[in-house]
């Protein structure tokens, strides 16, 4: 049999295995046996490199290259299924313009240098002004990569100027969880999607952004189960097509909708009195809003939501009063289970923390919490936004394991675990993302006190809002220095002074943490190209170089290197020399050190080797009497969470009010920071597309994905287009107060914005929509609002649109 036939047989075996047994059968064949036996491919597990779902793939390799990808049927997350991006994940390694060598800008030209010189250049920048050195990281960092960067900055340089790109995608979810439950991350898990009766998407498009999760729900419906799906959005998407109800709201008014539901629950007497009396307290804003707010009674809360009648909410939001009543009635029913899903729509919002609080509050007030299927659940866009950012704490104010720099006890614990001199960790939070880049792009003599930023595993040149101000302005500042560790050329490397080639995905060891608290491990499977090296090694090598120069910040309290890793015989392992990096499992050593931090907030992780054996484990992972490790699916619920006091039923054991209760917040609707006006009369919203992951750095190197969606476009409502005489495919000028760009129009395309709204995706590095976006951010989470600002569109005189603009329209037409 030919190799190709073997592969085809393997493909069918995988499909049969994932589809399940025939009626009357109890088992299905294992595809890997067939594949290994017949094709000679070696198979190993890894989480997918893309979104926060955390699908597991089986990676088939041969002759040192990834040759096949299969969904991992043993993985609980995806049960063998993958989406179109996961389907192509193996190909992201093999774009021909992979960065292969360190490059330094000398006299304006990028010049190849050695790693030794590159490490020296970074060490020089640190030594010259450690207080002005910053790291900008990522929710795509592996847990060990983020942990090393975190310790380097907060345990070493002690200026706390480290922040991740996750600030741009889920920081409001963090502040929402913390101010509601006292601790971050969802209580439930993906099983909620399998058991809910009602699924409400709040500004969320999982059909395109988390398709494997969404397919779990579609599958239930296809099997004849009745699931009511409601899309509360500002633009029709593929998700809307699957929903029975679409509630289109005016941008920013989702707060009014949530308050309207609370109003109805109280007015109708359908709020869950027992749940609220036993497990909740109430909070409202102080005059100057804070994350702690002020204590209020139920009666005060009732008065605050009283104005939010369905008619009043309709007036603010545009959602018909009857639809608000529909939501109120659903939440008022105790015999159904309701799951709320959200992602960027609620988080990229200048009232992001507030709307997160309100959606949690609606679930708490109605008692739709803590049973499988009854859950407020946020999704993340990056594979380790939870693991590396939220748990390792790579945000500018945080320390590992849910600690914060402002807390003296947390600092002392951290110093002890890191073997640092007392007082090393700085109590002052570092600069959050927008502030960090603003300081970097401001002349030093005018207070721009960030002189060097080292970017790892992300592309701020494309994703920062108001790019001209927060990124491009660096171009004219000769004393500022940008270091970028990357896998491909990007908008960020284009402005960099030093570019470091990085290993990607299965070219290195790694550990990720997905959206449902699941920690996932994988091993290096293939070599990176050229001289590309692990990001983790890069940071460690700089730390070691500084240590060898006698830089005190890299020494612990006993004078040892702060990243000291030793053999069993006590001898030091010289892993900072690249040729010795894989002499030991550095990831394992770092993970075991980090694991000690995870108990304080009951985010307990198991030993590294447990993750080697498992397909991910959801924390808290608690050791049983027989020595085995048990994961937790439903936090705060007695039936599953071992940390809940027996007999309590539910317990929020890190409660803000320290009484085991969660907080139901009142947060009022407020006007957005910028709204359409006479000059800029429309809304601009930005976002992602199915085919491309974030800035397209990886997916635009996959020919199928690039061809399927080759360039950015502006989605317009047909009435808006007709009003200006704009036709499909025509290039038009899109302008905000911050910038302008020309884009082809897509009318009646994949998404359907309402009149007065346009949508532009951000994946295209040749059409950078963040030249237009607003950098205004949520006061608590510091997360910018990419979802709305005022915009105008105009025709371009004499534009030969029919030839130039049709690419996205044609590419997506049925084949």
């Amino acid at each position, binding site marked *: 049999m030919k190799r190709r036939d073997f*592969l*085809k047989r393997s493909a069918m075996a995988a499909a049969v295995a994932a589809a399940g047994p025939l009626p009357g059968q109890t088992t299905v064949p294992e595809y890997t046996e067939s594949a290994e036996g017949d094709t000679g491919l070696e198979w190993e597990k890894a989480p997918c490199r893309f979104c926060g779902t955390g699908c597991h793939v089986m990676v088939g390799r041969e002759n040192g290259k990834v040759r*096949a990808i299969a*969904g991992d049927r043993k993985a609980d997350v995806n049960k063998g299924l993958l*989406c179109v991006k996961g389907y192509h994940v193996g190909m992201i390694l093999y774009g021909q313009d992979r960065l292969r060598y360190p490059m330094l800008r000398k006299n304006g030209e990028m010049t190849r240098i050695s790693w030794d010189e590159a490490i020296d250049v970074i060490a020089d920048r640190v030594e010259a002004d450690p207080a002005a050195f910053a790291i900008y990281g990522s929710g795509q960092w592996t847990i060990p990569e983020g942990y090393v960067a975190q310790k380097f900055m907060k345990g070493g340089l002690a200026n706390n100027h480290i922040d991740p790109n996750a600030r741009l995608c889920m920081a409001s979810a963090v502040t929402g969880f913390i101010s509601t439950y006292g601790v971050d991350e969802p209580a439930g898990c993906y099983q909620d999607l399998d058991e809910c009766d009602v699924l409400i998407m709040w500004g969320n498009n999982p059909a395109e952004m988390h398709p494997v999760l969404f397919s779990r729900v579609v*599958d239930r419906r296809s099997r004849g189960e009745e699931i009511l799906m409601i899309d509360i959005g500002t633009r029709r998407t593929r998700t809307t097509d699957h929903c029975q109800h679409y509630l289109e709201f005016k941008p920013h008014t989702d707060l009014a909708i949530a308050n309207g539901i609370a109003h109805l629950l109280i007015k109708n007497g359908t709020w869950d009195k027992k749940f609220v009396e036993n497990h909740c307290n109430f909070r409202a804003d102080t005059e100057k809003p804070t994350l702690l707010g002020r204590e209020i009674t139920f009666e005060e809360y009732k008065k605050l939501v009283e104005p939010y009648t369905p008619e009043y909410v309709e007036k603010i939001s545009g959602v018909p009063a009857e639809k608000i009543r529909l939501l109120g009635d659903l939440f008022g029913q105790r015999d159904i289970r309701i799951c709320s899903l959200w992602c960027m729509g609620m988080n990229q919002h200048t009232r992001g923390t507030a709307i997160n609080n309100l959606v949690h509050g609606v679930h708490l007030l109605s008692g739709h919490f803590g049973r499988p299927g009854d859950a407020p659940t946020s999704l993340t866009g990056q594979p380790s936004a939870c693991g590396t950012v939220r748990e390792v704490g790579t945000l500018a104010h945080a320390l590992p394991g849910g600690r914060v720099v402002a807390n003296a006890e947390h600092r002392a614990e951290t110093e002890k675990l890191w073997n640092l001199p007392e007082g090393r960790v700085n109590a002052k939070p570092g600069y959050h993302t927008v502030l960090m880049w603003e300081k970097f792009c401001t002349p030093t003599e005018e207070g721009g006190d960030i002189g060097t930023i080292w970017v790892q595993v992300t592309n701020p040149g494309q994703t920062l809002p108001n790019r001209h101000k927060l990124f491009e302005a660096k171009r004219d500042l000769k004393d500022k220095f940008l270091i970028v560790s990357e896998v491909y050329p990007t908008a960020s490397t284009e402005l960099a002074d030093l570019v470091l080639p990085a290993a990607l995905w299965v070219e290195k060891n790694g550990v990720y943490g997905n959206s449902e608290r699941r920690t996932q491990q994988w091993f290096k499977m293939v070599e990176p190209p050229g001289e590309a090296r692990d990001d983790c090694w890069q940071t460690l090598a700089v730390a070691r170089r500084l240590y060898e120069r006698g830089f005190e910040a890299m020494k612990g309290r006993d004078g040892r290197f702060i990243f000291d890793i030793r053999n069993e015989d006590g001898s030091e392992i010289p892993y900072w020399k690249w040729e010795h990096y894989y002499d030991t499992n550095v990831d394992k050593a770092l993970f075991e050190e980090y694991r000690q931090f995870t108990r304080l907030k009951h985010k307990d992780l198991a030993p590294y080797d447990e993750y080697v054996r498992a397909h991910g484990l959801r924390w808290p992972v608690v050791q049983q009497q027989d020595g085995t490790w048990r994961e937790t699916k439903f936090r705060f619920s007695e039936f599953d969470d071992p940390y809940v006091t027996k007999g309590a039923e539910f317990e929020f054991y890190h409660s803000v009010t320290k009484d085991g209760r969660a907080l139901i917040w009142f947060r009022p609707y407020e006007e957005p920071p910028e709204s359409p006006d006479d000059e800029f009369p429309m809304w601009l919203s930005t976002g992602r597309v199915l085919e491309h992951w974030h800035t397209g750095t990886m997916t635009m190197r996959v020919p199928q994905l690039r*061809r*399927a969606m080759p360039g950015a476009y502006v989605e317009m409502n047909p009435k808006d287009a007709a009003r200006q005489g704009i036709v499909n495919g025509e290039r038009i000028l899109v302008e905000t107060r911050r910038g302008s760009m020309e884009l082809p129009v897509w009318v009646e395309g994949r998404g359907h914005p309402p009149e007065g709204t346009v949508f532009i995706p951000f994946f295209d590095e040749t059409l950078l929509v963040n030249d237009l976006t607003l950098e205004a951010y949520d006061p608590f989470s510091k997360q910018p609002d990419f979802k709305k600002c005022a915009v105008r569109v105009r025709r371009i005189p004499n534009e030969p649109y029919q030839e130039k603009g049709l690419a996205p329209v044609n590419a997506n037409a*049925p084949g």
Partner: protein
Amino acid sequence: MPVSGLVLTLSANGGTAAEAISALKARPEIECEAPRGNKLPVAVDTLDRTKDQALWRWINELPGVDFIDVVFISFPEDEDSPEVAEAC
């Protein structure tokens, strides 16, 4: 020339689902197994990546197919360079 394994979620409407299966079976690049409830396992073998993508889109638009999940994909060695070079 990718070889892929897909699981198609068929519509609850039996008639449309049956028509979808017939249409799929009529394509020489597609091999269908017996449906498992609403799940149809298929293997797809196309001559080049362009055809693969077009076929994927065609399946996606096919009435009676609610959702496509991918479970297996291989990319044989002989096709790395030209396509990737084009991409960059």
